[in-house]
């Protein structure tokens, strides 16, 4: 990754407008020594207006639809807003909001509650289990599909299928399979003389079930991304290694894995974030149950605002902010550890 960008920068270093990012930082010293000052505002605008115009739609949409609600969400987490005291309309009467600013009370309440630790432990377990299993399976399957043999494109189509089906449909399909009395899984087990498994009704089984479904949903993305990565590793490397007598495992360990580093880092980061916030699987499959066994942080936040009565908007926002904070810390640590290993993005 780093090599690529610096290469293209080097290629385009002479170009006036193109690809100046890193060349600016590295080249600024020489520019400075030649006595050129910081460009004026007009110059900056005339130079960059193309780029700004092209990113403007994204900035606008993100700003309005994510920026504002985020600020408001953070504000709500500092109040005692709930269903009873927010502004609302009953019939013709408009009732103004009466909730008050309470500072960090919500945070101390949530963090002091043992429920938070319980949810956090399960959420982390769920994320680590899902991401590691998904990654391993994706890697194995991608390696298999990267060879040439008959029926390869058929297998590939079949294996990507779970990605092509909308999530809520797949989750519905799995509920159907997991059904305790009538689901096919239990019918098959019964046929084999094994007692029915309470897939979604027993805390431990429910945890395994939601992880299974999420892995099933996540493998295709992982596989396709890693397959792409595998195809970008030059075949000559393998030939050379084979000439030198490297075993299959050695080739995998010393060529494939390093070659997949950049792809892996991106997909692991993304899929960790996605899994951490994976609302639909848990909510549609178990609603966080049985009891609260499979409740992750996100479904907890949703429950506070939309399921429990009275709806606790402030509490929900507090959980939301805590989730965001945890993920940002994770991303920063992840990025720092990558940088230590010489990767930059």
């Amino acid at each position, binding site marked *: 990754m780093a090599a690529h960008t610096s290469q293209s920068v080097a290629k385009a270093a002479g170009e006036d407008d193109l690809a100046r990012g890193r060349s600016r930082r590295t080249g600024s010293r020489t520019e400075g020594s030649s006595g050129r000052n910081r460009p004026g505002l007009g110059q900056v605008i005339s130079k960059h207006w193309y780029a700004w115009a092209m990113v403007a739609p994204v900035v606008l949409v993100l700003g309005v639809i994510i920026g504002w609600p985020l600020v408001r969400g953070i504000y709500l987490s500092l109040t005692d807003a709930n269903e009873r005291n927010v502004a609302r309309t009953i019939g013709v009467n408009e009732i103004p909001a009466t909730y008050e600013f309470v500072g960090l009370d919500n945070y101390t309440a949530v963090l002091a509650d043992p429920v938070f630790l319980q949810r956090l432990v399960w959420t982390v377990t769920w994320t680590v289990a899902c991401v590691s299993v998904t990654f391993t399976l994706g890697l194995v399957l991608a390696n298999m599909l990267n060879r040439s043999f008959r029926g390869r494109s058929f297998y590939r189509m079949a294996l990507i299928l779970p990605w092509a089906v*909308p999530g809520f449909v797949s989750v519905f399909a799995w509920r159907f399979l997991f059904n305790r009395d009538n689901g096919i899984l239990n019918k098959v087990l019964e046929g084999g003389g094994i007692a029915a498994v309470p897939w979604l009704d027993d805390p431990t089984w429910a945890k395994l079930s939601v992880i299974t479904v999420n892995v099933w949903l996540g*493998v295709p993305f992982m596989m396709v991304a890693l397959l*792409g990565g595998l*195809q970008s590793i030059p075949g000559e490397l393998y030939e050379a290694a084979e000439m030198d007598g490297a075993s299959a495992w050695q080739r995998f360990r010393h060529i494939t894995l390093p070659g997949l580093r950049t792809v892996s880092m991106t997909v692991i980061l993304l899929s960790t974030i996605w899994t951490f916030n994976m609302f639909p699987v848990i909510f549609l499959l178990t609603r966080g149950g049985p009891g609260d066994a499979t409740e992750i942080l996100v479904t907890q936040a949703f429950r506070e605002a939309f399921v429990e009565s009275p709806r606790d908007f402030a509490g929900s926002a507090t959980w939301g902010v805590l989730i965001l904070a945890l993920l940002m810390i994770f991303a920063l640590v992840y990025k720092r550890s990558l940088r230590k290993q010489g990767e930059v993005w």
Partner: protein
Amino acid sequence: MAGSVRKRGERGPLASIGLHGTLVVASVVAVFPVLWVLLTSLKPAKDAISTDFVKDPTFDNYRYLVEETSFFTWFGNSVMVAAVTTVLGVFIAATTGYAVSRFRFPGMRPLMWTLLVTQMFPMAILIVPLYNLMGQLGLLNQPVGLIITYLTIAVPFCAWMMKGFFDTIPVEIDESGRVDGLNPFGTFWRLILPLAKPGLAVTAFYSFITAWGEVAYASAFMVGDENLTLAGGLQTFVTQYTANWGPMTAASVLIAIPAAAFFLFAQRHLVAGMTAGATKG
């Protein structure tokens, strides 16, 4: 090396069996849940829970959907929302990706960071304020409201992928366009975009799937039978006919078909597109 000498890359029979065996098992696991729903939808509703693979095949469940529910209205709403999201999403992601890939401008690094960070936002923190905002803008129950929301989900990831993709297209092509007198927009539109077709196919697929399969916002923002999209429509259905698996499975099949069709169209490009996108991040 006893016996016959194998060519490089050739497998022994044992390895071949292992390879195909593993792939067959994996494929069955991947396909079975979907296939089972398809088969169930073709059984008479009263036999939905039978374990026979095929039993008195019939289209009754589908006929029921079409005749007794507003399925086609929901379907039309979903198609409209997903199609507009896809077109706008691809266009916005492409311009952003191009700008980030080719120009170095003040605010670029924060923008890249923002695109990543938006992936981290739990929808739980946004949904209440967003609901209020949509209410103030008069966009509740309007497809436009949903489209804008979906764009915020799809575009950041797509822009990232497009950036990676544009990074693989040599800068010399831009330069030659500029020399020939095209402005940056012209270069982008006429030269680079046609070269980025695989990337566009992947982002289109991603945007479509996002908009087609989203549940939480769709059910929160849209009310009233004639405004619902499929995700919301199906939910009214569940509460009405709780134990009625038959029509549910038929609806699932009809919902999965457009997504799968789109996927077939895009899948040729999927691996190539992901390579560029994912490797360069």
